[in-house]
């Protein structure tokens, strides 16, 4: 039965049903896929699709209560039917996993070097000295600078990117045939994402390993995968060469996924209604049919099996009765909402704000914002972008009055926040409302939806009857079902919860709405739905909005103006077309260049920064970017940079006029 030269990994018709008292979940229903040596296969889809379950089945870690049929063949042996000893040898040696949250997956009380050498001494039977030597080489191989020093570091001393590199070295340490990466770049900055994904490509190319790259982020995996497998509700809906599946998808779900992602090239996002079903038994019909615009009676009568795409030469298969053969219309850029006239009233003003987090025992502190000024007019949307640690979240807290400025002012509708106390301050606070990153976490677990939405109205002193009326009005406006009002947060899906949070923010008719990464915790198609809701909300000419995100593409779709933050300072600001089309500051250009894109991406000459953010000295004098900037000279390192006007935009870089010359020719790399 087993072939002479088996694939490295071949999953055959794998079904997993998890039986727990009171509930049953069909996690996987007839999944087949394979990964060859030296091949990078992307496993994509939204949460609930079964991506992690596939990963767990490969290392024999199915959760308790799982009933599995089919086979997971690794070099011909079925992982599902291995005994404990064989399974132990298989894990680590055969297949190894890189987890999503590297800092959580590393043991906090042992140095990272120790964790790696432990594996080497037990699995590869190296001596202590050999293991140390090998560990140092491993660290160097995944791009950790000064590896010898890092061997002695504890996980909490590492940045997210560094921790993920350590995780990769742990997984590859025992030379596994297959490397499984479960969302390895979630939570990492764009510049790092690229670098980490390159490590996986390298593992396949240089060492001939198979790599299974699990991700919800289609744009990032597009560049490194050979083949892509798309999962939906525990079934494989489409699989084939990455360029074909992501370039010219034939399955309606794949197409919906691709259209849901905002892109830096500014194309419009198309939302698909509905959400992935949670199946209790293997589906008898096409699981995507209820959300599919092309579904017919046939789709609900029978489940389409995986078949080769008609006319396609290579192994491109899909499970659909009505494959789409037309080009995925790359829609024209979203129509830009009409410009706000300069005469519009200013609703929010921040003047030279500094925020310092003091350490508990007085001395020292960390300056999170260093002199940020901005203003938002009614009807205007201001985008705020930057990498983690740039001060985005602190800025949000400052605007809401959750942290006081150490210096400078925040004025809402003309009133200075720091002048007010007690009741007046509370009233002013209702004028600025925020939509948080984690929708479910920002709703009180023991309060109903109606209670949550009514919260700002309560502060305004409205009686209960009037509150209920206003709550219903805003719920209707956001097209939420009224039956949801009596539910608790844990009964909501992420998308529903975020709608509730938007409803809460709108209930008190605030002057300013702050969106802090409102879609980054949501699934791709849900993201598109929420972006649509937000787009409708920010059009309102009576209020201003601030849209904070690490994702440049998302900001581009909304903002009228953009500010780019770096280490607590504004490095560039200007109208959105200016900043995205013709970035002045080298940092902005580098951010745009590394943003993943399914289309052409950023068109202009690209800049690559040299170091990770965490390796630079935040308190050094001179331009904060100097240590990473390819254009930095001695004056940059010595002088503080002020924002200077360049056309309609302003940038904190004295060399902007020279940059076009410096950029001439090819991409700048150092």
């Amino acid at each position, binding site marked *: 039965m087993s072939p002479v030269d088996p694939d490295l990994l071949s999953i055959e018709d794998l079904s997993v049903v998890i039986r727990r008292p009171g509930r049953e979940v069909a996690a996987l229903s007839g999944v087949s896929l394979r990964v060859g040596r030296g091949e990078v296969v992307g496993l994509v889809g939204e949460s609930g699709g079964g991506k992690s379950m596939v990963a767990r089945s490969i290392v024999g870690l199915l959760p*308790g209560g799982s009933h599995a*049929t089919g086979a997971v063949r690794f070099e011909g042996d079925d992982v599902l039917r291995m005994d404990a000893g064989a399974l132990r040898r298989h894990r680590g040696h055969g297949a190894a996993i890189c987890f999503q949250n590297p800092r959580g997956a590393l043991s906090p009380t042992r140095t990272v070097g120790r964790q790696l050498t432990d594996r080497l001494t037990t699995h590869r039977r190296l001596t202590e000295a050999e293991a140390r030597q090998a560990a140092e080489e491993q660290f160097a191989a995944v791009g950790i600078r000064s590896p010898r020093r890092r061997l002695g570091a504890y996980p909490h001393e590492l940045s997210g990117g560094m921790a993920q590199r350590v995780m990769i070295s742990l997984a590859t340490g025992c030379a596994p045939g297959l490397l499984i990466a479960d969302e390895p770049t979630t939570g990492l900055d764009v510049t790092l994402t690229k670098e980490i994904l390159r490590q996986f490509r390298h593992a396949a190319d240089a060492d001939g390993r198979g790599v299974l790259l699990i991700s919800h982020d289609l744009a990032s995996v597009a560049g490194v995968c050979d083949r892509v497998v798309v999962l939906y509700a525990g079934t494989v809906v489409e699989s084939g060469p990455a360029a074909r599946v992501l370039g010219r998808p034939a399955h309606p779900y794949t197409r919906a996924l691709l259209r849901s992602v905002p892109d830096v090239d500014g194309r419009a996002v198309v939302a698909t209604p509905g959400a992935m079903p949670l199946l209790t038994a293997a589906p008898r019909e096409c699981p995507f049919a209820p959300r599919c615009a092309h579904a017919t009676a046939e789709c609900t009568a029978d489940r389409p099996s995986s078949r080769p795409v008609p006319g396609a030469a290579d192994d491109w298969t899909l499970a659909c009765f009505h494959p789409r053969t037309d080009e995925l219309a790359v829609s024209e850029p979203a129509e830009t909402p009409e410009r706000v006239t300069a005469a519009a009233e200013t609703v929010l003003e921040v003047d030279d704000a500094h925020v310092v987090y003091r350490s508990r025992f007085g001395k020292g502190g960390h300056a999170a914002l260093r002199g940020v000024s901005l203003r938002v007019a009614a009807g205007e949307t201001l985008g705020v972008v930057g990498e983690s640690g740039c001060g985005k979240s602190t800025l949000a807290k400052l605007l809401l009055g*959750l942290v006081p400025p150490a210096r400078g002012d925040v004025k809402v509708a003309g009133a200075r926040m720091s002048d007010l106390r007690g009741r007046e301050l509370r009233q002013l606070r209702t004028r600025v409302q925020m939509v948080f990153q984690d929708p479910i976490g920002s709703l*009180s677990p023991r309060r109903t939806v109606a209670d949550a939405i009514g919260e700002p109205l*309560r*502060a305004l002193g409205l009686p209960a009857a009037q509150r209920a009326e206003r709550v219903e009005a805003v719920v209707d406006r956001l097209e939420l079902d009224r039956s949801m009002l009596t539910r608790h947060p844990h009964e909501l899906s992420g998308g529903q919860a975020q709608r509730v949070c938007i409803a809460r923010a709108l209930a008190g008719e605030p002057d300013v709405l702050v969106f802090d990464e409102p879609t980054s915790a949501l699934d791709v198609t849900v993201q598109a739905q929420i972006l649509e809701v937000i787009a409708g909300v920010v059009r309102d000419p009576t209020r201003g909005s601030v849209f904070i995100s690490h994702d440049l593409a998302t900001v581009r779709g909304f903002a009228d103006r953009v500010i780019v933050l770096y280490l607590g300072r504004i490095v560039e600001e200007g109208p959105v077309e200016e900043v995205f089309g013709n970035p002045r500051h080298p940092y902005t250009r580098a951010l745009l260049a590394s943003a993943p894109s399914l289309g052409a991406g950023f068109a202009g000459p690209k800049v690559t920064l040299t170091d990770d953010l965490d390796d630079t000295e935040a308190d050094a004098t001179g331009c904060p970017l100097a240590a990473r900037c390819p254009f930095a000279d001695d004056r940059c390192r010595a002088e503080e940079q002020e924002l200077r006007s360049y056309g309609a935009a302003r940038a904190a870089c004295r060399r902007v006029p020279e940059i076009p010359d410096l950029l001439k020719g090819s991409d700048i790399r150092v």
Partner: protein
Amino acid sequence: MAETVVVGTARPGRFATVLIVTGSVILAVVALAAILAPLLTGWGPTEIDPLGTLVPPGPGHPLGTDANGMDVWSRLLHAGRLDLGIAVAGVAVAVVAGTALGLVAGYLGGWVDDVLMRVVDVFQAFPTFILALAVAALVGNGTGNLIAVIAAVNAPAYARLVRAEVRTVRESAFVAAAVTSGASTFGVVWRHVLPNSLTPVRVIAPLNAGWAMLTLAGLSFLGLGVTVPAAEWGAMISLGSPDVVAGRWWTSVPPGLVLLICVLGFSLLGEGLQERAEAKRR
């Protein structure tokens, strides 16, 4: 091909329910017996049978009489009122007081937190029972005082428990959302922080009531509990213990057993609630 591989088994979710129901039934039976005591016996708890002391179990006295000629069965039933009542009331006061302290300390932080927690430290520096002895000796006996003693020795633990929980909840996004919605400090604490900080209290309180009964019995055993001749299990054990050597088991063994059963009931209930809280978290 149809062969199915089964991986482990999921833990039955009914386990928690079984624990909770068993514990509740045990406690309900004891409480009911205490409440309905006059219907279940002809003797009063302190009524002396002039015809005999230390009568062995038999007709008339189902569990015999003690050295004073009082009916053991009647005393056993009536004692439940005091024991259950004082333990539950004491723990209830401790929960309310401790939770309030913990809320204030945890939410306000700063010097308020420092001062309150140092006071709690002082209380917790003594072994519980020694502290109970000291307080009982100080305030003297009597039902109200005993409730105060039980509350005083247990409240610090709740203060600490709730404070720790509040410090986590305070940082959560939903509290930030409530603050930015313009809610007053009281509103935030009452509607958002408090309801979301009580899970550990719900688990600990029943267990604690069990320990409180033991503390109470211990105090009475040492003569610092209820005033003699009031019916109380610890006092009954104390009074009856010399009889055991002479083979007269009925004066001290029954109250001991009932005490054991009650503590077991509280423990099962607490364990069950804990199990359920954990199951919810998964």
